[in-house]
């Protein structure tokens, strides 16, 4: 996470800061609650806090993002404070506190991908969608983000779309990927090595 752009020295008091979205009162669906109970068994009974990341993933799956009320709910389940939960949510990049598009595109921008044209991929996607990284397009379909090394540098440039992967995306194919995603959803993605090698 980065601390710098958000801190506006002297004009901004953290004590006045409010969470972006209170959201409606939150409870897990029965299915998610069962999954949560299952996950909790992996940790010692007096170490429930260990389940905070999985618990937040379940929230995000249910709502698409994490609201203040959901954080309070998770805090109650794990017997920690809501501030403890917010501390975690605000640290890890994979948690969102705002709604996102149906497809969240994360272009890896780190060295090996950048050497193979990742910056150009982002430019193409930006142009096609009419947004800059960090934004969601007007139709609410696509959110464009940049990510740091995704751990598949031999398949550069790599793009993550929600939890799935698309590898070896050339800048010239970037715009077509958007059309394919609109038409076929995640079936348009190459997937990870695993899948690629099976297709060969």
């Amino acid at each position: 996470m980065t601390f710098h752009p958000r801190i506006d020295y002297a004009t901004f008091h953290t004590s006045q800061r409010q969470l972006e979205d209170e959201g409606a009162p939150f409870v897990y669906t029965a299915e998610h609650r069962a999954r949560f109970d299952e996950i909790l068994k992996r940790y010692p009974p007096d170490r429930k806090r260990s389940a905070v990341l999985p618990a937040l993933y379940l929230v995000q799956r249910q709502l698409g993002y994490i609201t203040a009320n959901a954080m309070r709910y998770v805090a109650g389940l794990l017997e920690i404070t809501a501030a403890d939960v917010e501390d975690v949510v605000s640290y890890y990049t994979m948690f969102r506190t705002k709604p996102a598009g149906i497809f969240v595109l994360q272009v890896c921008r780190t060295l090996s991908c950048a050497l193979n044209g990742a910056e150009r991929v982002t430019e193409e996607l930006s142009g096609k969608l009419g947004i800059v990284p960090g934004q969601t397009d007007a139709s609410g379909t696509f959110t464009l983000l940049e990510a740091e090394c995704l751990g598949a540098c031999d398949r550069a440039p790599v793009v993550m779309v929600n939890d799935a992967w698309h590898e070896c995306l050339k800048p010239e194919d970037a715009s077509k990927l958007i059309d394919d995603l609109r038409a076929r959803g995640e079936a348009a993605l190459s997937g990870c090595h695993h899948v690629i090698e099976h297709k060969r």
Partner: protein
Amino acid sequence: MEPLLTKYVREPNSFTLDFYLQHQGYEGLRKALALKPDEVIEMVKVSGLRGRGGAGFPTGMKWQFVDKKSPNPRYIACNADESEPGTFKDHLLMERNPYLLIEGCAIACYAVGARVAYIYIRGEFLHVQHILEQAIADAYARGFLGKNVLGSGFDCDVFVHRGAGAYEAGEETALIESLEGKRAQPRNKPPFPAVVGLYNCPTAVNNVETLCNVPLILFNGAAWFASLGPEKNGGPKLYCVSGHVKRPGVYEASMQVTLRELIETRAGGARDGRRIKAVIPGGSSVPILLPDQLDTQASFDGVQKAGSLLGSAGLVVLDDTTCMVWLAGNLLHFYRHESCGKCTPCREGTDWLYKILRRIECGEGQMRDLDLLSSISANIGGKTLCAFGDAAVTPVLTGLKHFRHEYEAHIKEGRCPLPADWRARATVGAH
């Protein structure tokens, strides 16, 4: 050397239990369970296995340090966070050969007297996590995990714990904090995790590739393992080659191999018509090597002798189209983003370095900025809680050392001196 860890990765069914059982699967665990835990540790010590996560610390010794007298339970934490730029070997192992890791975890638990191993996997590897979880379920079903493993009386649980996007979670004490449900920020050392680790209990943190080597040692013997490589650098090693090469990928070799052989023979060398300008041999955190150092032996000790580190064995190859100021800026963007924020020099300094580098790249730098870069770097390196700080200034310091003329050219000409059509990157100034 014939591939050992990646021998079957291209077989369509390599990730299934039946395939694994047909190829010596769980034989290492059987052998381990017939020995005493101390004998297993002794074997790993004699084999000379060194940690594959970055530091190259002897694994047997790390296990021996796990406090056996403590009244608390002990833990194995497998580091599957793999976030070091240029590194993608653990990914392949878990995706294509997940049982090897599970077997390694079980043997490690047996050796240090733990009952539970947590595999901390980075959040972006969800597809890999699914494969691992399936493999773990199959292992339980056949009695390789759970209560009374293979009738030996030894109980062992392996759980996957998913991270959520934080490079720093790869640092061993930050990983433990994250496992405990907190921000991934490192702890002070000492005490080391072997004494006070997860839940304040003795814990061994081991990399995925490290644990995958353990079944091989048990099955084939410590002497065999040591004989596979140069002295103190035994066993097979996975190398990740990426960047400007014809065939990027994971290559397995004995540590006798040279950087040249990996880059030119295995990975196909530089792209047509290009020549290699520099190589980062061990993930983005280590010093840059120059083309005349390519005959260096790609072992922990060999690369160190050449003035760099083998680190996570992520070789990033840079050809003559690469602007070294841009490169430092790209990596500092990474470090600025990933700094956990606990120490001021790292949190603030990486941002300053990034901004100054971008300024120089865009042609708006001044000569005194070069001194500023050195001075900020000197105030980060060696002055932080974890090794991240040293890693973050490495691209700047080695860039200035070997390619100072490029920095100066940017400042004098007021622009990037490389031809614009060489760039695989966006127009300068777009940031």
